[in-house]
């Protein structure tokens, strides 16, 4: 990659970050949603012990506090929704202006790399923030592992947000898709309590939220190895990123 290309990516990343940071609705959602979600769970969930099974736990039954489990689960749900939404906004809203920049001389790959840099920074920020709020309610066994689980949730869902941003024409369609995906996958099927008794567990294991959920839960409640789940989550994120890159290029390219 040439020096000129790197300079253009740098300018683009700075301006994309400013464009996003000045979006007050997005920033407000980022700050408020995790607090509200955690607060609601803490206020409404009881202290009983529940028995559940983790896909990555070798079919071992675990007995844990329901509130702790629910807090972790809702943390993942808030991260997946926020990351997908922010990445979606990063791609869809400026698509027309991006095309114009491509006409002016930017290569689509340069614009995309700048967005990916910002998206990664956003994903890290979201995961850090949601992890930092968790000790207010409880301290998981391996906090660093839980952060890794939240981070992989953030990456995987951010790439899916980018894919949706590169596919849909209007914002409403995209938001509906994100809500559906987050609700069904992260907010329902990946719940370890649901998973323990679910039919067609293989189908649930194929969904994007599965491996990040396993990293989070395994870290919080066991001492089992995380590596296989981390590798699988990275594969999902890279796959999503490649799909997003291809779709974005199709939307932004200029014919010579």
């Amino acid at each position: 990659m040439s020096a000129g290309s790197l300079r253009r990516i740098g300018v683009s990343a700075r301006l994309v970050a400013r464009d996003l940071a000045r979006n007050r609705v997005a920033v407000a959602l980022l700050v408020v949603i995790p607090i509200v979600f955690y607060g609601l769970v803490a206020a409404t969930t009881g202290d009983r012990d529940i028995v559940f099974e983790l896909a990555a736990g070798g079919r071992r039954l675990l007995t844990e506090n329901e509130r702790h489990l629910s807090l972790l689960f809702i943390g993942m749900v808030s991260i997946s929704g926020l990351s997908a939404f922010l990445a979606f906004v990063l791609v869809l809203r400026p698509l027309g202006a991006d095309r114009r920049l491509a006409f002016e001389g930017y290569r689509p790959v340069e614009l995309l790399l700048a967005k990916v840099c910002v998206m990664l920074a956003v994903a890290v920020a979201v995961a850090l923030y949601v992890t930092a709020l968790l000790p207010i309610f409880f301290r998981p066994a391996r906090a660093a592992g839980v952060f890794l689980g939240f981070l992989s949730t953030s990456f995987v869902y951010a790439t899916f947000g980018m894919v949706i941003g590169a596919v849909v024409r209007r914002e409403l369609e995209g938001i509906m898709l994100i809500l559906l995906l987050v609700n069904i996958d992260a907010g329902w099927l990946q719940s370890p309590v649901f998973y323990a008794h679910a039919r067609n567990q293989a189908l649930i294991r194929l969904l994007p939220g599965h491996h990040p959920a396993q990293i989070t839960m395994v870290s919080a409640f066991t001492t089992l190895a995380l590596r296989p789940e981390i590798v699988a989550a990275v594969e999902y994120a890279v796959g999503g990123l490649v799909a997003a890159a291809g779709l974005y290029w199709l939307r932004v390219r200029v014919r010579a």
Partner: protein
Amino acid sequence: MVTDGTVLEARGLAKRLGRRQVLAGVDLTVGRGEVVGICGENGSGKSTLMRVLAGLLPSDSGEVQRHDTLGYAPQLPLLYDQLSPWEHFHYFAAARGMLQQVWEEGARQLLERYRFTQWRAHPVALLSGGTQQKLNLALALLANPAVLLLDEPYGGFEWETYLRFWEHVRELRAAGRSLVVVSHLFYDRADLDRTLVLHDGRLAEAR
């Protein structure tokens, strides 16, 4: 008129959008230093033609030959909501690989000429439609391209800025720049070297 060579050439452009044949064999040649106006009813395909000429939309058949650098101002401003005009200039200058000193001087002149210097640091979302249109045009002009495709560039301009626009067009023409301007206003014809009408998907000389 200064014409010593063709800078933009389109032959047999056809484009169908949905069930509608919007362009049906458009031929267009633009010479150096020529100002061409394109008129036509609403929905006649003027913006589609401009996008095809710019390379932003593929034609179904026909070809476009661009012999020099191109600038394009779309009808609807395509801008970043939360970035200021100055940040837009920076972004677009980076796309063209312009030196900082050069683009900053060019941006200052454009802000002054089109009378929106006071808005240079405000996010686009807070600017009026007319000011956004000024920025939309200024971004196409920043790199001083040889050929400018301007799709209704002065919608929302106040009278003074509108006059300044045509004054700028005359300066650009004198400097050998070529312009294709989409317009509804026959008032503009005095400043056009040729006026073409897009009707039934084809271009014809206006009577």
